């Protein structure tokens, strides 16, 4: 990375809360864009037949034993959606920021019944629960993915605004899913206030009891990353410590939040190193890079982030919440400041 792409040192900008809030938001979007699943999410705006062909090509590759795997593609359609850019996590963060001061069950209730959304299993189930007469906290508790990190992503908005994410988290999550949100909000709140990364990670850990999976995993991940010494070196250690490779979906808060905390700390808050490493954790690449980007972006501030990445990540596509197409995340960040 040339020095021309990196902004001023954090020590010169400790008072710039607004820049750090923008760093949290754009940092999350950069991480969201950097993970390989982003292009798959973004292909959601293309015609459904292109995704059907993708599934058929997967079958073809299996049948013919070819190692050349299909990637999201366009045929007779716009190619822009498949360019590097943010997807689900950035869009749900923006939606959260724009509804931040509303009653959470009411805000989510407006989404129930819509058939044009894409969301995590926890959120889809919570919307069904709300429509079916199970209000929070049952909506997040009676939920097969109560443990996922949907609320941890949204908690970046609450942390940046200095608000408690618990009520929001309980709409879609419970247990480790809510604890993950509280940890992310605590860390982001500390960082936008100018705290050092070690203090922010400590604030997050204080939300994660030892006897929970997320608390146990967070401490194990931090110890593994510290032993490894730097973010990229920590990748194999985190893979070994965090993942059992048993389950079919890699968005468990007990895995992604600890990975983000560990990489944010061991990188010294450097987003380029931390997000690159998080993106290498392929089972968790849907959201670990985004959470890592939020922490490190909040630490360094937006002005310090690589310009090209910020430009690629700041505009939403509307692949999960169509009404957000074209929204500039810097405007969203201003609303949080």
């Amino acid at each position, binding site marked *: 990375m040339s020095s021309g792409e990196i902004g001023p040192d954090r020590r010169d900008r400790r008072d710039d809360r607004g820049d750090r809030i923008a760093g949290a938001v754009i940092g999350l979007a950069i991480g969201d864009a950097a993970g390989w699943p982003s292009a798959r999410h973004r292909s959601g705006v293309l015609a459904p037949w292109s995704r059907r062909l993708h599934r058929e090509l997967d079958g073809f590759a299996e049948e013919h034993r070819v190692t050349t795997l299909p990637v999201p593609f366009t045929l007779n359609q716009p190619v822009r959606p498949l360019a590097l850019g943010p997807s689900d996590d950035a869009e749900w963060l923006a939606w959260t920021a724009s509804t931040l001061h509303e009653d959470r069950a009411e805000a989510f209730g407006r989404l129930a019944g819509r058939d044009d959304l894409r969301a995590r299993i926890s959120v889809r189930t919570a919307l069904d629960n709300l429509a079916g007469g199970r209000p929070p906290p049952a909506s997040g508790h*009676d939920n*097969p*993915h109560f443990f996922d990190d949907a609320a941890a992503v949204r908690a970046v908005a609450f942390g940046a605004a200095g608000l408690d994410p618990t009520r929001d988290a309980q709409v879609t999550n419970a247990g480790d899913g809510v604890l993950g949100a509280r940890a992310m909000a605590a860390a982001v709140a500390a960082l936008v206030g100018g705290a050092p990364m070690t203090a922010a990670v400590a604030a997050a850990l204080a939300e994660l009891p030892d006897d929970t*999976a997320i608390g*146990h*995993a967070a401490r194990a991940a931090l110890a593994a990353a510290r032993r490894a010494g730097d973010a990229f070196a920590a990748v194999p250690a985190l893979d070994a410590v965090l993942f*059992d490779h*048993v*389950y079919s979906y890699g968005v468990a808060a007990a895995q992604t939040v600890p990975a983000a905390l560990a990489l944010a700390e061991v990188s010294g808050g450097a987003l380029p190193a931390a997000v690159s490493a998080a993106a290498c954790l392929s089972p968790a690449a849907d959201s670990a890079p985004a959470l890592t980007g939020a922490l490190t972006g909040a630490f360094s501030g937006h002005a310090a982030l690589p310009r090209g990445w910020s430009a690629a990540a700041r505009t939403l596509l509307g692949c999960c919440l169509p009404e957000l197409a074209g929204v500039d995340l810097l405007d969203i960040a201003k609303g949080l400041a």
Partner: protein
Amino acid sequence: MSEEYAERARGCLLGLAVGDALGRPAENLPPEEIARRWGRLTEIEPGRGGTDDTEYAIFAASLLVRYGRALTGDDVARAWREEIVGKIEGPMRGAGFSELGTVQALRRGLAPPMTGRWHPHGWSDGLAMRAAPYGIFAAGEPEEAARLVAVDGAVSHSGEGIWGGRAVAAAVAVAMTGAEPSTVVAAALAAVPEDSWTARNLRAAVAVVAAHGADVAALNPRRPAVIGDPHEALSRELHEAVVARHYPWTDLAPEAVALAFAAYLTGGGDVEESVVVAANLGRDADTTAAIAGALAGAGRGDDGVPDRWAAEIGPVAGACLPGVAGRHVLDVADELVERALEPVEGT
């Protein structure tokens, strides 16, 4: 008294085994697909036997025979390490997410209850499927049955998965007294927190059955399903009430337990009707039919299990748990009863 106890114990585990075997081919199928393939699924596939439900129930029973009421989490973890983790060669056949997740947690050196929390499948129905022996052992003592199954469950489950196990163990303990199905279901509800997913789903399932069950119970279970018939309406409404439709797997305890109890209530406690209704509801059909069969079999005894089904149940193959290969559920039931009737040490 002890002969009746033995008959109910055999009925319970035989009911579990026939449910497992009948539901086996219907696992993960939607009810419409089951109806398309079989009309109504009423016959066990010859020569196939059961699956993980029967083998893990036998494994749980072996813990009770060894440790009785003194069973601890360390005992359970040691048994898993020696008899499950230590005997896996290559693939862990027939295991659900919670079992393999538990094995991985044990391989990391974790101990209960963290082994049941480390993987995200604490809510799986893997404890409910192996809970019946606790109800046999602590017949007439639903609180003790629920306590013991929770000791076992801490190795592999947390939260709703524990509640599912407690619901089934407590209900079997009461069914073993010959209680009416409504009393048995009340025991299940009493064994779980009122503010839980399991309790909410059980209450929702009971409400659906209350609205439709009488119509369905009036039918012969072997009658083919037709569009618009009461089975179809019951099935649809149960799915709407308790199935998480945006989740692609079918192993959620709050869902499986609710479907199993709904089938048992619909069947009025009759083994054949309860098991057939459960299997034809689909989802985790081997497990739901096994639970319904265990509840009904505990109430009706081994004479209540259709002969044509019982004839299909032999010693288990050990396909999922090599350590239980060759065990027959009827022998296991007798051992549980014998152990339960032993004088308690020190009295």
